[in-house]
């Protein structure tokens, strides 16, 4: 089922949680709402579920307006960050809950409930835990039970609020792969909230990047990562180096460096920020006029497949982070304290808004 959000606004007192949000989630897609805490992503998810109502704007399921329909009638599955399993019920009863509370006319028989619950527990690979209580499970197991419980009512939409936020790194990684596979099997329209860019990039079909109640960018993971629409998206998705620069008629000046740009042709000596990913900076020992910046190596972190080098330009406070392959690192034989030259490749330049 597709979800459409039109001009949704939501404020809590003085705080604007959502500022005129427009968003479409096509049928069967897995979409991530990504942003720092307080950006409004959870509010948006709760509004879709019906747990909150928007101040203005509307929600449409399959083109039908659902803004004022009751939570119970929306037929959504919701997975909470802290699982929210019923602590006094067994795992089996937790999963069966949504079926048991149905009115008599639509409630399945006990045998049917039993069959369905076991089917779901098998789907989340935890059939053997049916008689346990939630407190006796690990975090990862609890979250899978929470998912099974949400799926038991055969929801048309699955909403997940920071589903892996409370888990440790290893379990988190396993679970998000598992969620991706599950989604590929079930094809249920899903929206999940996360502040973890890696998670969003790995799992989602599409990413909605949010900040301060606004949608900053919507796109496939690769588009959002390679072509961030704003400085915020650049900084939020992956590591990035920021160079202060001035832009004049399509040319950016970063220190001694000049870069020709395809955009900002009309800019007249404006302040700008140039963003470069750590793997897009080349280190060398020779300078080329107008193409390199001089910097000193302050720290080398050589554990893992990539070597991370931190540098500092003279008279500047910001650290520059560079990632290079082990081979390249060995070739250059860099040492801490050494003076070298760096060449940023394809910097993305954004004019500063304050000007």
């Amino acid at each position, binding site marked *: 089922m597709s979800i459409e959000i039109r001009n949704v606004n939501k404020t809590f007192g003085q705080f604007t949680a959502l500022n005129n949000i427009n968003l479409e989630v096509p049928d069967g897609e897995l979409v991530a709402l990504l942003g720092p805490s307080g950006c409004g992503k959870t509010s948006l998810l709760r509004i879709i579920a019906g747990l909150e109502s928007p101040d203005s704007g509307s929600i449409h399921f399959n083109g039908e307006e659902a803004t004022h329909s009751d939570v119970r009638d929306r037929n959504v599955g*919701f997975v909470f960050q*802290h699982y929210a399993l*019923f602590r006094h019920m067994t795992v089996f009863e937790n999963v069966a809950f949504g079926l048991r*509370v*149905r009115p008599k006319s639509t409630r399945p028989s006990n045998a049917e409930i039993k069959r369905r619950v076991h089917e779901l527990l098998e789907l989340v690979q935890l059939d053997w835990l049916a008689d346990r209580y939630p*407190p006796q499970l690990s975090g990862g197991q609890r979250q899978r039970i929470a998912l099974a*419980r949400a799926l038991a009512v055969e929801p048309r939409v699955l909403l997940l609020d920071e589903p892996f936020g409370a888990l440790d790194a290893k379990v988190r990684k396993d679970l998000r792969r598992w969620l991706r596979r599950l989604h590929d099997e079930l094809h249920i329209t899903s929206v999940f909230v996360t502040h973890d860019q890696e998670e969003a990039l790995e799992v989602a079909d599409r990413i909605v990047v949010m900040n301060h109640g606004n949608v900053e960018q919507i796109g496939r993971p690769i588009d959002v990562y390679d072509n961030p629409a704003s400085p915020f998206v650049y900084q939020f998705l992956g590591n990035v180096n920021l160079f202060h620069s001035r832009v004049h008629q399509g040319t950016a000046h970063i220190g001694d460096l000049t870069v020709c740009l395809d955009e900002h042709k009309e800019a007249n000596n404006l302040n700008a920020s140039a963003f470069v990913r750590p793997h897009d900076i080349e280190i060398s020992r020779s300078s080329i006029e107008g193409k390199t910046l001089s910097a000193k190596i302050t720290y080398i972190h050589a554990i893992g497949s990539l070597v991370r080098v931190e540098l500092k330009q003279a008279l500047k406070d910001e650290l520059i982070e560079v990632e290079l392959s082990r081979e390249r690192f060995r070739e250059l034989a860099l040492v801490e304290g050494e003076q070298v030259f760096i060449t940023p490749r394809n910097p993305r330049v954004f004019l500063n808004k304050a000007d």
Partner: protein
Amino acid sequence: MSSSTQLTKYQSKVSSKRATAEPTWIRWTLIAIVLLFLGLFLFLPLAAVFTEALRKGYGAYLSALAEPDALSAIKLTFIAAGIALPLNLVFGIAAAWVITKFEFRGKSLLITLIDLPFAVSPVVAGLIYVLVFGLQGWLGGWLSDHDLKVIFAIPGIVLATTFVTFPFVARELIPLMQAQGKDEEEAALVLGASGWQILWKVTLPNVKWGLLYGFILTNARAMGEFGAVSVVSGHIRGMTNTLPLHVEILYNEYNYAAAFAVASVLALLALVTLALKSYIEWQATRAAAVVDY
């Protein structure tokens, strides 16, 4: 290497235990003070109640309890508690439910109002009912026209008892329900449960120990209430006397053995309450231990 670090950790744990402990003489002095205090103000009076009650032997003890006025006092006490308890249970659950699960204006005012019976002297509470329902009171004329008796009758006693005991259940449930949050209720809602189903299947099972605890405290107070009930009862022997009032009357008549015999019933009730309370706390911590994992 690792075993040596473990050893140092262990040693530092031991020494830190010593470092944070008080010298022996301070510990024993503190314990002695507590024991002395408890003995003087708790165990001695309790022992006195039972010794005085049994001073004239078992026969006198039992006949003091079997006397019609005493029996009627016991009956009235159970009636008052029996009505006040369910009322306060329903009120307490409702109050805790709205306060912890919903946001609304005037919430802090409601919380303050719930605490009112704790803040107001029971005698004042009793007087309020006399002022409202008494013969000279606001509703007195109307009540006597319709031949309804509230003050100096059972309804007044029930009202006063209910008033002084209504904070207990709510006070017990509010912090518990606040700590548990709204997540489970919201989960139930999304799964399609109705308000009643959420209350019966999710909220109440989660607070059952707190509820039972509040219930027992309410019961103890309801049976032991003196001040407010004394004002509205009128002390009519065999009619509007509850157990505490009956004790007072016997005592004022210098009928010490009987007074202490009836008082010992109240003391026994208190002991049973304490035992039940400890049992419930023990069960609740066990349940919590499982939850904490």
